[in-house]
């Protein structure tokens, strides 16, 4: 890597990190952060089981963020939703916990089921998976396989979790197993 390209990549890093800071708010308007390639994954372990929430720009999952008008786009969207709903393929827990996928919900302006409509340039896709666990206290590890499932989308995912024992967070840049310890 030569000198100018190092400088360039440094500038890019700096500018992308600025995107994080871009969620300032006025009195009544919200402008959520929206960085392609990045996503937030929140895992909450409760008495009934595990709830996983993914907040991501739609581009990470579908490849585009405009309203799907062509047949090809609609097909891509349907494929992506199908992939997302198969939550057991995207996450796996240690077997002692006895977790099974109960429900998966995909909310996005692209699907027309979000609060806002899909006329903005950028649209998010929020997914909630609920796993029912027979032994939630035994839940120690969750393997995340989102990078393999959407190889062209995610660059890094910020994974946060809360359990009875505590809470913590880790930055993922490839598929990995989360150890749910504080």
């Amino acid at each position, binding site marked *: 890597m030569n000198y100018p390209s190092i400088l360039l990549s440094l500038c890019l890093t700096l500018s992308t990190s600025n995107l994080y800071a871009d969620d300032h*708010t006025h009195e009544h308007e919200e402008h959520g952060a929206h960085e392609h390639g990045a996503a937030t994954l929140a895992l*909450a372990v409760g*008495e009934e089981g595990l709830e996983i929430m993914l907040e991501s720009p739609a581009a990470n999952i579908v490849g585009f963020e405009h309203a799907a008008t062509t047949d090809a786009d609609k097909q891509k969207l349907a494929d992506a939703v199908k992939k997302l709903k198969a939550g057991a393929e995207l996450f796996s827990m240690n077997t002692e916990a006895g977790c099974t996928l109960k429900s998966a919900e995909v909310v996005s302006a692209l699907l027309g089921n979000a609060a806002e409509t899909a006329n903005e340039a950028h649209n998010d896709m929020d997914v909630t998976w609920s796993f029912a666990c027979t032994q939630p206290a035994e839940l120690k590890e969750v393997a995340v396989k989102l990078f393999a499932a959407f190889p062209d989308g995610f660059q890094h995912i910020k994974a946060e979790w*809360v*359990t009875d024992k*505590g*809470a913590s*967070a880790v930055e993922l840049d490839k598929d990995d197993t989360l150890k749910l310890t*504080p």
Partner: protein
Amino acid sequence: MILLHLTLRSLWNRRASLLLTLFSIAISVSLLLGVEYIRKEAKSSFLSTISGTDLVVGARSGPVQLLLYSVFRIGNATNNISWQSYQDVASKPLVEWTIPISLGDSHQGYRVLGTNQDYFRYYRHGDKRLLEFAEGKPFAGVFDAVLGAEVARKLGYQLNDNIVIAHGAAATRFTLHDDKPFHVVGILKPTGTPIDRTVHVSLEGIEAIHVDWVGGTKVPGYQISAVDALQKNLQPKVITAFMVGLKNRAAAFRVQREINDYQREPLLATVPGIALAELWQAIGMFETVLRIITGFVVVAGLLGMLTTLLSTLNERRREMAILRAVGAHPRHVFLLFVLEASVIAVLGCLLGAGLVFIGLLAARPWVMAEYGFYLRTWIPDLNDGLLLAVVAVLALLFSLIPGAIAYRRSLQDGLTVRV
């Protein structure tokens, strides 16, 4: 066995220079272990400052900043939040308890925290421990104050003393709330957290000392006495932040999202553990740098040992020749050096570990008195054991060099070596 005996005798013969080598290794090892200890202790001390609190809510800034000023009293709030917003969140069905916090004033360099009795009922630290009183009880009146352990000890306060709070961080004559002194009703037990360095008063108290202030200064000729102030409406209009306990911790993210989407005011809710993890990721780089430096110090110590072994090679040619003459095989000569280095390295590791252990024991009373921080006894864990093993293996590898040289020479040299 006889080789080990020979090694020990040979080492003893050169004890002066080897003792110095041993010390240099011991010191580098103790530095390595000490840095690891501090790293772990700092992290667990941060983690133990707040426990059982599901969310911390303040004005919108960054999660780390919010946590630092609200829990660790580091830095300042960018903004305050309205009492109304606080009430709106506190009345959410999933919220079990809340603790309001109002910061900004100080007493002789210690922060003054305005809160309510829920602070003593719900705030937990360490292993979910509530605050305990060494003396007295929580504040009940508007001008009551509860002192952290360090505040009471350093400033020599006792129950029923009166203290004057300064406006802001300054303590000049003009910025003292000297017309409305506070009455010490309680002193907390030491916690090893920033609570020890905090003066706790009621939110109404904070409000009362500011009733006759306009724009952050006293108004000449306009004074409301402490008694009259009690008649005023002391309901605060703004607070700095608040802590939230939920009925069900699993709902933390849902409530966090609701608070972050609150429309009337830009609020920020953060899960303390997650903000701490972010902080740790940010300073993780410095940890790595520190570890690399200590790694090099250990290598330098071992190089010192190598230098000592190499420099004595020439002097010991005759020793080796005699050993060969009495029937030692060249590989015995080689082993002699490896054993020597191993003995030094192992002794160095043990001595280093001992230094850390004794050093921490010796420093404990002083650190407790000076910083209110309890140094736990150093008990080596698996990680420390691995580090020591790495040091020993490195020493072994280093010793292969003089060993190989001695091996080769012992084949060439006869008994008539001229040294």
